[in-house]
């Protein structure tokens, strides 16, 4: 069993960093406390390094998922870390520095904030490593629970607390759903280990309890990816939380959710239906309807928003819908090939989405109104390309990429979804995806037009300023550059995704026909 530990070195490294950060944060020395962020970064870097060298788990359903997912998580985690820096305790530390107050360990939140972030990433990585239902459940909860706290303490305003309470309670409800689903899956198969479950399903096929469990479990996990019908919390929470936390929420739980969904689907395998290449009909229908509705609901709701964070929240819902298309499509007949492998397309899209979405939130995070509140209204970014060219252009590029404007990264991602879904014969879904991209263009264009083409408001008291945290602007720029630069490296990323998205088909054990 200990050799299994080798797969968990990245998680362990993060965990160790977490513990260190938590302790460091209690130090009365300002310099020591400052190390929190650096230690977190080192932890992530180490995790990334370990993830690259992680062995391939040949027994898992997705044997090559772990290295890819963990590396991705660590890289995006680093970016998020830079973004999260300075979110909490900024004023408190400033007061301490100016001598107006003294440090009190109970009063300080910073260390908790970083360590919760690392916890959450640990949970996310563990999701990718999960090999049983119990593990999956725990990993998902580990991913989510810290984020509830992070949302709540991310700002000192009541909005964050409202977001926190909604997120927590609805999250608990969602967890109850998928837990019950998991229980039924266990009931249907008599196993919690994925390999066992897959073997049972491969041998005996689906049964009603199992189907029901899968449906409830998938819908429950949909909470993490904010898919219909579990999407309601998303805009409120994203708007209430501080922009860096929103950025994290749009990536971390979503990644966890998608990995969980992919794993759950992989348990059944894409070998049903007339072509023998789709999920069991009930599950396929569920995901199909969910994908179509999620895209549509997200995009249409985003149309009439003024709050940029809400727009991005709804866009986050819509993007989940796009990615679900890849899940419906499945790994295809030749999983090694990116073009037909929907799972690979989802993983790649997750990567694209991570960068472009973080970039958009980073622009908001790097701005503040003169009264200290966050920039959120669409008017706040009016003419941003003229007042803050770097941030403005980052916003424009990220919005264009989210829009799917060729040749930016978002387009490549969407193209992968197109090819895989068409390969799987899901042409109607592709058309819905296309139409939804067009609807989405309407509001993404606002995010392009407002900063770039419109004149900045007259220099008045409401003009936004850049916050004094350079790392946030750097994140914005890095993300914006990555949506351009990664296009050139697309071949590398695409082949990695294809490898990671390889799903092993479980062969039913050879045995005599004992069924009555």
């Amino acid at each position, binding site marked *: 069993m200990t050799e299994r530990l080798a797969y968990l070195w990245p998680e362990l490294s993060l965990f160790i960093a977490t513990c260190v950060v938590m302790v460091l944060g209690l130090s009365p020395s300002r310099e020591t406390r400052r190390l929190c962020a650096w230690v977190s970064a080192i932890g992530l870097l180490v995790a990334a390094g370990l993830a690259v060298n992680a062995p391939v788990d040949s027994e898992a359903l997705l044997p090559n998922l772990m290295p890819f997912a963990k590396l991705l998580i660590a890289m995006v985690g680093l970016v998020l870390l830079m973004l999260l820096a300075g979110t909490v305790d900024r004023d408190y530390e400033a007061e301490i520095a100016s001598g107006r107050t003294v440090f009190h360990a109970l009063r300080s939140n910073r260390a908790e904030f970083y360590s919760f972030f690392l916890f959450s990433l640990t949970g996310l990585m563990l999701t990718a490593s999960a090999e049983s239902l119990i593990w999956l459940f725990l990993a998902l909860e580990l991913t989510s629970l810290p984020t509830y706290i992070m949302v709540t303490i991310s700002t000192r305003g009541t909005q964050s607390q409202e977001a926190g309470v909604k997120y927590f309670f609805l999250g608990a409800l969602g967890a109850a759903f998928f837990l019950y689903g998991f229980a039924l899956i266990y009931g249907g198969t008599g196993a919690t280990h994925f390999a066992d479950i897959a073997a049972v399903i491969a041998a005996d096929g689906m049964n009603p309890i199992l189907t029901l469990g899968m449906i409830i479990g998938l819908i429950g996990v949909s909470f993490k990816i904010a898919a219909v019908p579990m999407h309601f919390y998303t805009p409120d929470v994203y708007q209430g939380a501080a922009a860096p936390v929103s950025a994290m929420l749009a990536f971390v739980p979503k990644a966890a959710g998608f990995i969980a969904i992919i794993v759950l689907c992989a348990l059944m395998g894409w070998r049903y239906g007339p072509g023998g290449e789709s999920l069991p009909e009930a599950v396929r229908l569920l995901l199909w309807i969910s994908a179509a509705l999620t895209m549509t609901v997200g995009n249409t709701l985003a149309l009439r928003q003024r709050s940029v964070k809400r727009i991005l929240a709804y866009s986050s819902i819509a993007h989940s819908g796009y990615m679900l298309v890849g899940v419906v499509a499945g790994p295809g007949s030749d999983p090694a090939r990116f073009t037909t492998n929907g799972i690979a397309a989802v993983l790649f899209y997750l990567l694209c989405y991570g960068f472009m979405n973080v970039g958009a939130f980073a622009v908001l995070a790097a701005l503040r109104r003169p009264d200290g509140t966050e920039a959120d209204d669409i008017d706040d970014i009016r003419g941003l390309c003229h007042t803050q060219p770097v941030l403005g252009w980052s916003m424009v590029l990220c919005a264009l990429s989210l829009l799917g404007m060729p040749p930016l990264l978002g387009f490549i991602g969407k193209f992968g979804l197109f090819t895989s879904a*068409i390969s799987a014969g899901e042409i109607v879904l592709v058309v819905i995806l296309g139409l939804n991209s067009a609807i989405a*263009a309407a509001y993404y*264009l606002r995010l392009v037009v407002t900063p770039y083409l419109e004149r900045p408001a007259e220099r008045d008291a409401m003009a936004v300023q850049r916050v004094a945290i350079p790392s946030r602007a750097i994140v914005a720029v890095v993300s914006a550059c990555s949506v351009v630069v990664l296009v050139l490296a697309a071949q590398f990323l695409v082949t990695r995704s294809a490898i990671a998205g390889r799903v092993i088909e479980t062969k039913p054990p050879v045995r005599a026909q004992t069924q009555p």
Partner: protein
Amino acid sequence: MNSVLIPAAMLIPVIFALAVAIMPAEKARGTALLGMLLGAVPVLGLLFLFDYQNAAAFQFAGSVDWIPEFGLRLSLGIDSVALLLIALTALLGPICVLGSWTAIVERQRLFYSWLLILQTAMLGVFAARDLVVFYICFEFTLLPMFILIGVFGSTNRKIASIKFFLYTFTGSLIALAGLVYVAWYAAGHYGHWTLDIGDLASAARTMSPTQQGWVLAGMLAGFAVKVPLFPLHTWLPLAHTEAPTAGSVILAGVLLKLGTYGIYRFVLGFVPMAVAEHAPMLAVLSIIGIVYAGLICWVQTDVKKLIAYSSVSHLGFCVLGLVAVNATGLSGSILYMLNHGLSTGALFLMIGFMYERYHTRDMGQLGGLASKMPVWSSFMVFFVLASVGLPGLNGFVSEFLCLIGAFQSSSSLVAAGHPGATPGALGPWYAFFAGTGMVVAAMYLLIMVGRVVWGKLVEPHEHHHDDDGSHLPPDLTAREVTALIPLALGCLVFGLWPQPLLGAIEAPVNVAIRSFEFEAPQPTPHPEHAQADAHVGEVAP
């Protein structure tokens, strides 16, 4: 060595766009003009070095792997059809800069840099040998045009630009689905993914008629919007009326041709059986467009809107020639793309010059400009006549060929032993009904000329030359005339001597029509794709 010409033609505008963006605003237009002219130099090289004996082959080809996983290569190369359209694009570029010289006063850097980027994107569409490279450029043209309309347009610019963007974007996303379907099919055919247009075409032709029909529908959703084919045309008048002059020129001159080029290259090239089957429907739509839009022109009061609707009408001829799928029709259509670019582009330029002076396009407020602007009026009449399709000018050549193409294209005439007929599903009646468009075109364009150019001088009430700030003389300046002369020469020369063009495109046209020489539509699909058939069958009514 020669393969650097196309990348050079595409890169020079981009480089200059960046230069324009960082230069002082007052130098923007000069730099942009220089960029356009320098960008035209490699195109001249293409024109001279092109091997016209071998015009159907893709020349100056070069490619770099980009995403081999998709079979995606940055692959460029042109046959003579693409060459001519590239030449048109390169010609219109500097003219647009000249035409905007004084019209664009504010935010010049923004304007000219996007104009240059647009140039690159358009060249890319025609030069692409890879499906996705084509699509990227095809889609990317939307953004510059969106900005040109949305920032530099007139009063309703926002609605117009958004409508333009969303309408065409929606269509092309559905087209992408169709194109990807073809790519997937071809992957099954070859055993590996390829996005090379030539490979895709030969694979796609083995699809079953049902598959071809659906692919046709998908691709048309993108290309027919762009053309625009009735009833998908309503974005165009709005976009044209609101766009700045250069935007209109490019829009009419090149962007609409992306649609017809797409139909030529992809619809005809990929799904000939479906085209053969649905040609009557497409032809009827084009004819409705010709007559319907023509009649609408008649009752317009806004000159620019009138010309915009006339584009809808004219492009109907172009599509009609395409679906005639014979040598005359295709040649006519390809020439139509060029000729419409020259003459309608010029008309928009003319109207722009007028608008700059009078700040109105309402025929009720303008009239008899011949007595005040004789040079302008002469050019206007000239280009209107080119647009009407007067023999001896370019419009005639293409219109005539499209019509005779439609006339010939009748299998029943072939069966009746008429030597000049070609296999096809159209026939004399199509030519007749489309031909009424010639009459209608004469009607609305001459009425427009009659009101704007001839008659008693009428100027807008608030028009005072002293305080309009533009400091333009009443009649055209040397700069404006310089912009018009190449277009006028093109109209005249290609009207009297189209044979060089016809000769140049003969080979690709013959290759294109050869793909229509199938026996009967084969009902049995490719064995590997029985499953695909099943999927398509599901959605089929």
